[in-house]
């Protein structure tokens, strides 16, 4: 029975492939997702249900944040308007299923890039838009200065189903500490439960800790320990098997970082068209025909920079000016400024 089903399936797939080959034009020919996006007129984007600095709804009802900006960049590149995005708030549990089932086409939801997710879940991570690491928040009056002060028997609040939970298990096992995991599906429940005193520590990515700390009843009563117990490269994800769409999302992100490196901002982008630097000319779409190579028009990158801004502008607007991490950018500074933000050349 299943044997025949498989054969029938491959037959259906072959017919479908033949059909797509014969009917469609250049770029859209190769990308079902691109074709559908143009037809619908908006980019279907999966974000978190609310994480300050990454994806959050402001008072006016608009989505804002670092992760939101990635989808806005894709919309600006593909559809010409950064507002043509349909955002879907997804829980950690729903996110991969939603992407696999086609409910969203880009998943930009502070998602850590791991081997298991990349290979086993049929997803493709296109890049990193935030380098994060897992940390701990504790009460200031506890006197704890680092994770070396942790003792067996403590209770730790966190979110379940994320890499956070696995890192925590690994970390505590490596230190030989016994602990009680109090795991919630939603971040705000975990945070409030920690705040009430049920847990001695709250753990998640450090950017998340910083964002959640601002929402706690008395933010000054809590400190984030200096230790970082994991690497958390957060980035946008697409379905495996549509390499044209994958390239579009990847380079929409890359061009924002490249633009910062070469000093192209939303304010000066139009003026940069007369620049003498060939790379800058490629970034603003005057030279090189980069857009055509992606199956888009050549103004794609100019629109991203003018409508969304470069990476630095996005970071300043969402992370620094909101008071989440007002200080230095740490690893998220450009490689030329001592960070690790380094993207392949736009060439």
């Amino acid at each position: 029975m299943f044997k025949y089903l498989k054969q029938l399936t491959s037959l259906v797939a072959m017919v479908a492939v033949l059909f797509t080959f014969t009917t469609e034009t250049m770029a859209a020919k190769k990308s079902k997702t691109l074709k559908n996006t143009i037809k619908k007129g908006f980019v279907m984007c999966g974000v978190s249900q609310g994480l300050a600095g990454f994806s959050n709804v402001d008072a006016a009802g608009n989505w804002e944040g670092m992760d939101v900006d990635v989808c806005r960049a894709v919309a600006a590149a593909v559809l010409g308007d950064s507002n043509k995005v349909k955002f879907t708030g997804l829980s950690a549990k729903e996110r991969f299923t939603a992407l696999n089932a086609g409910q969203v086409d880009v998943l930009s939801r502070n998602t850590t890039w791991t081997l298991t997710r990349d290979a086993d879940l049929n997803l493709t991570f296109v890049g990193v838009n935030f380098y994060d690491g897992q940390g701990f928040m504790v009460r200031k009056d506890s006197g704890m200065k680092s994770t070396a002060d942790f003792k067996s028997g403590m209770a730790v609040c966190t979110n379940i189903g994320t890499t956070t939970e696995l890192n925590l298990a690994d970390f505590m096992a490596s230190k030989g500490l016994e602990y009680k995991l109090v795991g919630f599906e939603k971040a705000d429940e975990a945070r409030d439960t920690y705040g009430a005193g049920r847990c001695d520590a709250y753990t998640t990515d450090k950017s998340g800790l910083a964002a959640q700390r601002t929402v706690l009843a008395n933010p000054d009563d809590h400190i984030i320990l200096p230790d970082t117990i994991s690497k958390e490269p957060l980035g946008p994800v697409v379905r495996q098997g549509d390499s044209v769409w994958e390239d579009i999302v990847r380079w929409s992100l890359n061009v924002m970082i490249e633009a910062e490196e070469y000093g192209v901002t939303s304010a000066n982008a139009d003026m940069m068209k007369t620049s003498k630097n060939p790379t800058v000319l490629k970034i603003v779409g005057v030279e090189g025909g980069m857009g055509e190579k992606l199956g888009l028009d050549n103004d794609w990158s100019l629109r991203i920079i003018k409508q969304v801004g470069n990476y630095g502008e996005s970071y300043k607007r969402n992370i620094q000016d909101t008071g989440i991490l007002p200080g230095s950018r740490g690893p998220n500074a450009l490689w030329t400024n001592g960070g690790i933000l380094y993207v392949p050349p736009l060439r």
Partner: protein
Amino acid sequence: MKKIIPQLLTLILIFLIIGFFTFNANVNMSNRGMEFGYSFLKRAASFDIQFSLIEYSRESTYARAYLVGLLNTLLVAFSGIIFATFLGLFFGIARLSPNFLINRFAGFYVEFFRNLPLLLQLFFWYYAALRVLPLPHETEGFNNFYLTIKSLYTPSLVWQNLNIFLYLLIFAILLVFIVKNYLKKIQEKEGRQYPIVYISILILIIIPSLSLIFGISTFEVEYPVYKQLSKSSGTFIGGLAIPPEFISLFLALSLYTGTFIAENVRAGIEGINKGQKEAAASIGLNRKQILNLVVLPQALRIIIPPTTNQYLNLTKNSSLAAAIAYPDVVLVFAGTALMQTGRAIEIVSITMFTYLSISLSISIFMNYYNKKFSLTEK
């Protein structure tokens, strides 16, 4: 023939529908390069679970994690059913009390807890009621019981050779059944009555405690001891720690379901004709005999079927655990494990099958119990 054709057509239709969904899932999964299979159950789960009735660590398999979740579900469902039945019996009878205060109090309990959504009650217990409890270092405790925001810490028993004690207990239970049947036969033959209840209790106490008297099984009481974790926080080590997640789920489930059982009990008792009691009294039965031999057997016939439904509801409602971090099968398996593996179809199907099995087991047991009390017409 006329009867077979429609049945055959229905059967074919059912097969077609199942076939369509299987085919559909198969095509779509292979289109997305997804595989179907249960082999992930053998992989290491690599996450921790708050509390577990069996040995579990991060090196255990997903199958083991499933078992931990299942046992936690059964634990809260079982204890919830017992307490809800107790509440239901108490308040159901109290509602018929001629005492104004008791009667109104029972009425208030039923109307209040029955008419609020269960999830809201659960949130009340977890996020409101249990949040105002003191921190471990702030509490004095009561006879070595410490009720804190982190857990309820109680003394526990540490057993030596517990298994011998348990074997004797099982033996005692079997013996009770045999003795009961034997005494009933004597009663039917000779008309003599024995105090069966007292004899049973005596057997249940004496036989297991033989192992304690002869020192084969021993137990010590372990008390929770305070341990400082940092300048401002502490915990208790040793003894038994009952987490607030369990307490709130247990309270919400049993208080809510108890109201429905109370109404069933009231309906059962009120459903019996006054003439039955009067007739029983007129043939010389005393009050206890009237209750045991006339009223209760008939009332139970009315009470059991709807109460079975309430037991099933309580068990299924226990899946609300996911909202308050109680590690039941939904949170651990259909939550964490699903997210870590991405095997949605496999995990959801196992979870559905699990609840179906639990519910059917309860139904079968209650149907058997119901049959015992049903009218046998001659």
